[in-house]
């Protein structure tokens, strides 16, 4: 993928906003890949967790928002627990989800959940899911 870098995209308002609401220093990540190696959902993702933070480091936020990876992150925080630089990537994923929800709408159609699932699933599955996939 060809990426054109400029000062304006590297430190865009959106990049600054991600840093602000996640409370994370994006440039602290030196791309060791520990997060991707330990991520239990990586098998289902279209982009590795370390690639998502790399895109945001380079100001390519729209590409990160296009990725399904942000929706497959289960916030288990294995990446954060093991990151040698103390970067909480799950907070960056949450920041990207938040921006995607605000700009592009909900990721889950609550009305489409089947009645038998409503009857069966524990409450915390729905409450957790609604908090991550809807605004």
């Amino acid at each position, binding site marked *: 993928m060809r990426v054109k870098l400029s000062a304006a995209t590297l430190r865009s308002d959106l990049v600054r906003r991600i840093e602000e609401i996640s409370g994370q220093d994006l440039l602290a990540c030196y791309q060791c890949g520990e997060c991707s190696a330990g991520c239990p959902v990586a*098998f289902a993702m279209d982009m590795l967790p370390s690639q998502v933070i790399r895109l945001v480091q380079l100001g390519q936020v729209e590409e990160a928002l296009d990725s399904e990876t942000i929706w*497959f992150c289960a916030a288990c925080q294995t990446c954060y627990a093991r990151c040698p630089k103390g970067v909480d990537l799950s907070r960056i994923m949450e920041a990207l989800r938040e921006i995607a929800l605000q700009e592009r709408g909900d990721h889950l159609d609550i009305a489409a959940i089947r009645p038998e699932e409503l009857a069966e699933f524990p409450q*915390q*599955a729905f*409450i957790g899911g609604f908090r991550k996939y809807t605004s």
Partner: protein
Amino acid sequence: MEIPYYPGCTLNTKGKGFDYSVRASARELGLELVELETWNCCGATFPLLVDNMLDLAGPARVLVSARQAGRRLAVACSTCYNVLKRTNRVIREDEDSREKLNFFIEADYSGDLEVLDLLQILRDDIGFDRIKEAVKKPLSGLKVAAYYGCMVLRPPSEVAYDDPEHPRALDDLITALGAEAVDYSHKGECCGAYLAVKSAEVTAEMSFTILASARRSGAELVVTNCPLCQFNLDRVQEAGGKMQEARGRVQDARGRVQDSRYAGFQPIPVLYFTQLLGIALGLYSEGFELDRHYVDPRPVLSNYLNEQARS
């Protein structure tokens, strides 16, 4: 010993077998859990954005109610424990958030409550030695996999009371009950949690990875501390259910169909750890709701269930 107790939504409804076995076991061990007079949902996930005060308001209200009841709070659901413990830390350590939250929920709370996981109380206040002495039906011969999930381990600096990569507390409890705690590789790996509402195929794959790891180590039973883990791990195995169809083939985000490594897997019952504790203490009754599990645990446990309750 009396201690205020927060059951949480799932234990109050779909996880009644957990709640019942928690209260029965605690009482038998001299621990009186006193349910909070007023409580609400904790929010089920800790909000990860630093400016998300709104999602902290719910758990903050629970903490205020708990502080009125005492200085310590017992929580059995590991997700509630995680959310309450982390919210309490924000209130205690971040002055700006503390002021905002107190203003919003009309309270004056400083964060001086100790939020404790039930397993932590059993280990540190009761002691596994005392539990071992109280066992009436030793679970000798039973091979059990302790599954910790995420919530009592991560983030380690905020919630862990055990080694986050090699936790022991649940294994040690299993050993105290006379059973054998098997060592396996996935005791702290995420089951997929709320991903279940978005992509059941993916949580199925994640849950099977954990269960297969436990099976390979010779486990006959898995015990956990989280209602959502229990649900994901148990339901994925439901015979004849829709989840079973996902067992052979899994579709990922790119639409690629992957062959699952777990076809032909032997179902393994998934219990709450307090159900196993209660059984070993000789307290088993209908209230444990073992009949509500997808994989019936009663055949594996038949040697240890009370005579009168076995029918």
